[in-house]
């Protein structure tokens, strides 16, 4: 079986190649679907090869854990609704971070155990309290298996992985609606900074050989706590950026742990994801006109300045009038937001748009870069309803067309059409590029009630003279519009 290690190495090489080619194919709409399949084969090859590595123990446990993990994730991934995709990505990403942290923990514990054994300390079961504090302040001289660089990167990977794990779980809970309050208290930033500093100091101690079970436990508790505390104050509207950032984090953690384990495929795949994720995070933050630092550390919506008071009242319209208005319009632009997706209204909205098209109305869908919960999320949801690409326009393309638009129909979008982003420097979203729907001749806003949007900011658009409010759930409102149009034709 002398050829086995080479065969396994070849499998790892093939996996790395398939990952890169797969990602490359995923970056173009035509080849995207094949891309994920290629990457999937890469994963399969790598996992199978790993199973045949020489001197692996606990194969039964490995099989059991793989089966349970794959089964649970497959089942949940197949069942989840398209609107809930962002939080599922957060959840699976957090699991990856947790796995990287677990690798780091196993390596560190093994390191301490071997070190203590080498010093002639026989029973070092970490579950026995007297073993915990042994040599807390003495470096383990006999380095077993891990070089200083490996130790340092292993600790760093564990730190990043643990932060990504607990942070992603918070992001998941927020988007899932389990945690709808932002958790803010005075001196939060200072507390978080202290937490991070303490974690890093312990990490440095661990990396320089001053390892003990107690230190390892403290390190992971602090790292997990930091991920938690860092994510809690961030508002739901910023979660996409945060998820993308944690995605990059997990990639890096995987790369570092790959170095510790001497696995090149992990290094390559992890680094590619780390770099790609970092760039993606920047693109997202830019689309919201904010820096990543601002997202992480600026408490969104908590600015002290008083926002402009808005004069006037919201003016309602009923479905029949709205339908007539659009039926006799020349150009209609539909601006969908996350609210449309939550109400599962995209199919009804597309049906309505098709009826308009049949009457000769020119219909377009305008999509803001951060509509939905991730860039491109709204495109996915419209694609699910069957809306063709050529009717979907992005912000730069559609903004010049609004003055020539008769009716702009806003469904479930709020902050991305708020003119205050241009006019009110005190507004938390000031400076964010928006869709200029208020330039259209008439604006119809479908909205559930009079409350503020996801970010909790008043919207001046709703009070504008050319705006009419069509109150109701997105799905119900779109259904009414459809039946009104049909009755006009009958």
């Amino acid at each position: 079986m002398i050829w086995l290690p080479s065969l396994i190495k070849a499998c790892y090489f093939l996996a790395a190649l398939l990952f890169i080619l797969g990602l490359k194919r995923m970056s173009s709409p035509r080849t995207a679907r094949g891309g994920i399949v290629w990457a999937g084969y890469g994963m399969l090859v790598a996992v199978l090869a790993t199973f045949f590595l020489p001197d692996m123990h606990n194969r039964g446990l490995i099989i059991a854990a793989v089966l349970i993990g794959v089964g649970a994730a497959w089942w949940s991934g197949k069942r989840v609704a398209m609107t809930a995709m962002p939080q599922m990505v957060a959840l699976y990403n957090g699991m990856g971070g947790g796995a990287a942290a677990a690798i780091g923990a196993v390596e560190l514990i093994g390191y301490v155990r071997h070190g203590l054994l080498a010093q002639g300390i026989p029973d070092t079961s970490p579950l026995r309290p007297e073993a915990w504090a042994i040599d807390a302040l003495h470096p383990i001289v006999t380095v077993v298996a891990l070089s200083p660089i490996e130790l340092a990167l292993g600790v760093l990977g564990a730190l990043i992985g643990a932060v990504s794990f607990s942070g992603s779980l918070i992001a998941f809970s927020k988007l899932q609606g389990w945690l709808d309050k932002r958790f803010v208290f005075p001196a939060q930033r200072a507390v978080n900074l202290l937490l991070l500093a303490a974690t890093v100091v312990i990490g440095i101690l661990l990396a320089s050989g001053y390892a003990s079970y107690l230190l390892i436990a403290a390190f992971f508790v602090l790292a997990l706590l930091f991920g938690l505390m860092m994510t809690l104050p961030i508002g739901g509207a910023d979660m996409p950026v945060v998820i993308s950032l944690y995605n990059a984090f997990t990639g890096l953690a995987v790369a570092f742990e790959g170095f510790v384990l001497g696995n090149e495929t992990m290094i390559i795949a992890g680094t590619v994801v780390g770099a790609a994720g970092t760039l993606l995070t920047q693109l997202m933050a830019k689309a919201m006109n904010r820096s990543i630092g601002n997202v992480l550390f600026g408490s969104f919506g908590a600015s002290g300045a008083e926002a402009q008071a808005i004069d006037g009242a919201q003016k309602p319209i009923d479905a029949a009038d709205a339908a007539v208005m659009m039926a006799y319009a020349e150009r209609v632009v539909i601006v969908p937001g996350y609210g449309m997706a939550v109400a599962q209204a995209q199919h009804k909205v597309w049906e309505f748009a098709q009826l308009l098209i049949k009457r000769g109305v020119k219909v377009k869908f305008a999509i803001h870069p951060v509509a939905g919960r991730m860039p491109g999320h709204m495109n996915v949801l419209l694609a699910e309803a069957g809306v063709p690409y050529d009717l979907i326009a992005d912000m730069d393309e559609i903004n010049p067309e609004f003055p020539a638009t008769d009716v702009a129909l806003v469904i479930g979008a709020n902050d991305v059409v708020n003119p205050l982003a241009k006019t009110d420097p005190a507004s938390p979203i000031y400076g964010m590029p928006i869709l200029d729907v208020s330039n259209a001749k008439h604006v119809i806003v479908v909205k559930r009630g009079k409350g503020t949007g996801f970010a909790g900011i008043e919207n001046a658009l709703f009070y504008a003279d050319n705006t009419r409010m069509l109150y109701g759930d997105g799905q119900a409102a779109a259904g009414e519009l459809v039946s009104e149009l049909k009755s006009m034709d009958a």
Partner: protein
Amino acid sequence: MIDGFLALYIFMLAAFTGYEIIARVPVILHTPLMSGSNFVHGIVLVGAMIALGHAETPLEMSIGFIGVLLGAGNAAGGYVVTERMLEMFKSSKPDAKAVSKEAK
């Protein structure tokens, strides 16, 4: 084990690769691509399997077990979700042509 500088070269080249892949991607593919890259770092499963395969004490074994569990979840969940998203891109293509012809 890998030579430190060799690893540094791998880091550098892989980082450029990741950057280049994302740099020219249309916005509509950002979400699927984020999900796809989320799947790719599911390779952490391999590392977790190695860690569990070399674990000796009950503590190491239980942490390793959790690691493999989480890693398998990352890989499988990432794949299913990405595949479902991209599936819709494919199915909307022929529809798109048919509908735009209808519209004309």
